[in-house]
């Protein structure tokens, strides 16, 4: 993305576009990344709730293929999807909170 000059941006650091935080990818700050073992995950969604960046997404079980469904241990209506590494800062809160130790903080 080409950065703008001081004459081209709103004054005072004001942000005039709502929801523009989406454009600010904080994933580059990460030194370790969370890797989820879906065979251990019980779909309790604690990681989803605790993630400070809302970087963990959820899917409907019904939308998954039969092959994907096989790997899921606890089949709830909504199941864990994946971590968005564009925004995950690697804080490790998800791994800390996971009750079944399904998330490992791996080296980048």
């Amino acid at each position: 993305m080409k950065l703008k000059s001081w004459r081209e941006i709103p004054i005072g650091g004001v942000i005039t576009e709502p929801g523009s935080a989406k454009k600010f990818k904080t994933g580059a700050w990460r030194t370790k990344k969370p890797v989820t073992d879906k065979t251990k995950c019980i779909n309790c969604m604690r990681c989803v709730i605790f993630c400070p960046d809302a970087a963990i997404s959820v899917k409907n079980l019904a939308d998954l293929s039969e092959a994907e469904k096989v790997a899921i241990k606890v089949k709830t209506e909504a199941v864990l999807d994946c971590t968005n590494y564009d925004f995950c800062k690697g804080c490790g809160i998800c791994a800390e909170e996971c009750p079944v130790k399904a998330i490992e903080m791996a080296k980048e």
Partner: protein
Amino acid sequence: MSSTRKTKYHALSGGEAAAQAMRQINPDVVAMYPITPQTPIIESFAKMAANGKVTTSIINAESEHSAMSAVVGASAAGARAMTATSSQGLAYMAEVCYIASGMRLPIIMAVANRSLSAPLNIHGDQSDAMMLRDSGWIQIFSENAQEVYDNMLISLRLAEHPKVLTPAMVMQDGFITSHAVQNVLKLDDEIVKKFIGEWKPLYPLLDIDHPVTYGGLDLFDYYFEHKRQQIEGIGNALKVLRAIDSEYAKISGRKYSCIEEYRLKDASIAIVLMGSTAGTAKSVIDELRKKGIKAGLLKIRLFRPFPGEAIKKSLAKIKRVAILDKAAAPGASGALSNEIRALFAGAKKSPQFQSCIYGLGGRDVGLEDIGKIYADLQKGKISDKIKYIGLR
């Protein structure tokens, strides 16, 4: 009362003069926290609010930090917001002052200048203002109560100008100006109302159809650009002030400029200073002139943005100049002294300069002290060492 003579003059202290201007401005929000010697400003204004003279929402804050934070919030929301403080109060506001200027919020703050602790002292010097000289605020200094009143109105227009959008501090010397009662001419309320006009904020938070975020994270990619914009904005104040001063002269008959020259055109010796001591210097000059001594004064009204070009032009032909700072910069020369000397660095012709520190902690500077400075200039007694006026 047998006299039927109507006087246009009002007997007001500097603090009351500031409050009178605030009454006529009728700001949407004033957040306040008392501190000597600023208290007469907010006290007078609170009385006006209690008597229904203004429709301002008054926020009695629990500290100056909160008071400045409240006006920042109000101003971002789109309100005309004002406050007042002194000394430790200004120091406590310092963090939020940078936020106000960085967010380009045209807040007006009346400051009754007072020394900073320690040692604890409640009297007037300008060290509080100098502490915030790089905070990005416009800084206007007033010589007397009349100038306080006029500068309050002028600074509002200046701060709110679309090319400027920068907060402004209107200074008056603590006690000497803030508490001394002087004759002040006020404009009619309607004239002021017309002069200040309606405030149309650029990015009001309360405009829910155009949602904006204030205070977002701004890292190495854009912080520098926003600071450059800020420098441009306050820099524009120099030119914009000229236009507003002319407009104000038409409605008031009082013509101001970023600097004031007093009997300076043909002077060979001169003093440069800011604030109330200008009055003392003018009296001394009048006496010296009677004796044929070509003494003059350059009073700095606008300290930020610094009107370097105008100062350089006005001092260029003077032989010897004493620069008086009413604030110490321990380990260095006073701020005014540094900046004025820097103007002449590398110049082919320059006055000889004497840096002086005076009036710390409200130490009285009388006619004799100023007379002595002129006498030394006349005799050519100039040195690179700082002179401390009135120090034992």
